[in-house]
């Protein structure tokens, strides 16, 4: 891993944190929503972008994290710092079980299996009122502790940002490790990867577990910062779909692309709110546009742009 790979995201996070001190509550809220989606999209990218398996069940892992956090902090009296990792572990445990089922299939069948699992998860969230509050939702989840004595909405945003940064760095370490390389080998050619002696089953299970763990963490942060969660946040066609969109529009397999995608996809509807009726329509058209004209997403388009600029400079100096 090059040092720049660590320095640049840290700088970006620092700049955002400084800018946030000047932002209004409304902007902070939107930025926080972008942060939750970014956490999800980055962890999702570890699985989809690096192993090539498309999970549509991640909305459910997000939900498991959120509900675990809600139960631990309200009924179990756990404090924030213990409940967040515990929520990740819960999502990870379910994730491993799901992976055991889903990895029997490949390609589109994998997507459809996880779609089914995601739908079951959503239905369970609406039915198991004892644990989730059912359709009415789960209210009264305690906010994260205030550390710096700042305005709570600013603190909550900074916490989300910190978490997104941690997820990004963890994902970076994971994907540049030997396991990450083996994931890439699986993505490119499963049979060849097996023939090379890569323990395919274990490696992709690790990627899935990693991905589910941080999705659960994201859910815990979301639950804590919003004090209330309802099942509609964890559906296949809501969050599950949004994060696919964020990863694709941003550019899969780059980590920073999905994070950027999450920011764009969250802020876009806000910018378009002037034409409220048409915002979803525009959102759909944009997604289609990216799919057709920029299949590598924003990250791919931006990289191509940088390369052209660099080449242009070389050309002029000659």
């Amino acid at each position, binding site marked *: 891993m090059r040092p720049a790979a660590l320095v640049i995201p840290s700088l970006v996070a620092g700049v955002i944190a400084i800018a946030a001190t000047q932002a209004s509550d409304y902007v902070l809220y939107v930025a926080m929503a972008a942060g939750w989606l970014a956490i999800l999209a980055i962890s999702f990218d570890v699985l989809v972008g690096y192993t090539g398996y498309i999970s549509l069940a991640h909305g459910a892992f997000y939900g498991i994290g959120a509900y675990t956090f809600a139960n631990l902090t309200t009924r179990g009296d756990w404090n924030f710092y213990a409940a967040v990792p515990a929520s990740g572990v819960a999502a990870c445990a379910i994730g491993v079980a799901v992976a055991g089922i889903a990895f029997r299939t*490949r*390609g589109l*069948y994998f997507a*459809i299996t996880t779609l089914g699992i995601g739908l079951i998860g959503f*239905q369970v969230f609406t039915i198991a009122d004892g644990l989730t509050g059912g359709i009415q939702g789960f209210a009264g989840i305690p906010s994260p502790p205030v550390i710096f004595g700042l305005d709570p909405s600013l603190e909550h945003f900074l916490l989300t940002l910190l978490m997104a940064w941690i997820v990004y760095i963890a994902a970076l370490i994971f994907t540049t490790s030997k396991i990450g390389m083996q994931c890439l080998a699986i993505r490119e050619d499963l049979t060849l990867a097996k023939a090379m002696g890569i323990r395919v089953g274990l490696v992709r299970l690790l990627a899935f577990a990693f991905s589910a763990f941080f999705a659960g963490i994201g859910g815990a942060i979301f639950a804590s910062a919003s004090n209330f969660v309802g099942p509609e946040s964890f559906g296949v066609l809501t969050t599950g779909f949004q994060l696919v969109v964020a990863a694709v529009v941003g550019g899969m397999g780059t980590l920073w692309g999905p994070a950027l995608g999450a920011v764009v996809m969250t802020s876009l509807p806000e910018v378009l709110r002037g034409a409220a009726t048409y915002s*979803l*329509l525009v959102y759909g058209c944009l997604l289609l546009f990216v*799919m057709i004209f920029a299949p590598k997403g924003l990250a791919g388009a931006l990289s191509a742009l940088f390369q052209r600029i660099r080449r242009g400079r070389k050309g002029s100096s000659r």
Partner: protein
Amino acid sequence: MLELLPQQLVNGLALGALYALVAMGLTLVFGVLLIPNFAHGELYMLGGFISYSLVAVGISFWPAVLVTMLVVALIGIALDWTAYKPIEQAPGLSLMISALAASVILQQIATIIWGTEPRTTPSPVTGVIRAGFITVSHYQIMLFAVLIAAWLAVWYILNRTKLGLSIRAVSQNRDAAALMGIRLDRVRIATVVLGASLGGLAGALLTANFPVYPSVGTLPILKAFVVLVIGGIGNLWGAVIGGLLLGLSEVLVAGYISSQLQDIGAFTILVLILFFRPNGLFGRAEIER
């Protein structure tokens, strides 16, 4: 409870007939063109709205159904040209995302045109037949009749016409079919027209008894994917049987266990089948690109 069983079976089969009609169009397009067409649910929804509007301006029901099928087929072609054809060579995931985008767009267009309020067409067939414990409505009989007619028609086209032969050839091996001189673009349009008009037909029948609203296609299309996994992708017969089986099992689960578990039951069947038979219940060769 047991004396309700025959009635439950009838209701389950009627629900299943609607699933089967939706799944038939989906399985055709998926099997031949390898498009996981999530927007098929929106073609179904548009079929409902269009036939509703046609009946509302005074056209009688059956001519309205035919016009609806034609219009939805045209929408299907437009959908294919904008969302799927430009990325023909892309991996399945791209097509799936494109399909999800298309389904959001179509839902929003429908919301702009018709609003979000549920709408129902006055049923063209009313009345029921009573025999002992069982009540069968004429609407349910019509559903079966249309399902059988549609299945026979599609079967005839696929197995007894030259066009059908080329469609089947493309679904078996696209490259070999092209080398044999089959015009892929024609097969593509024909498949899309068949699939979309089946979706439109299902939607038109839906409005005759149930309300239609912009998101009405979401759950049926997810169920249709379950049917596809039960019946095998690209398998017409499998879609019909799978649809009926799913309808039956949902009604039985709702009737004898809990209505809350109806949808969970369907998706659990999906996951279980894929766990034990990763290529579908009657799985053919794996579809992967």
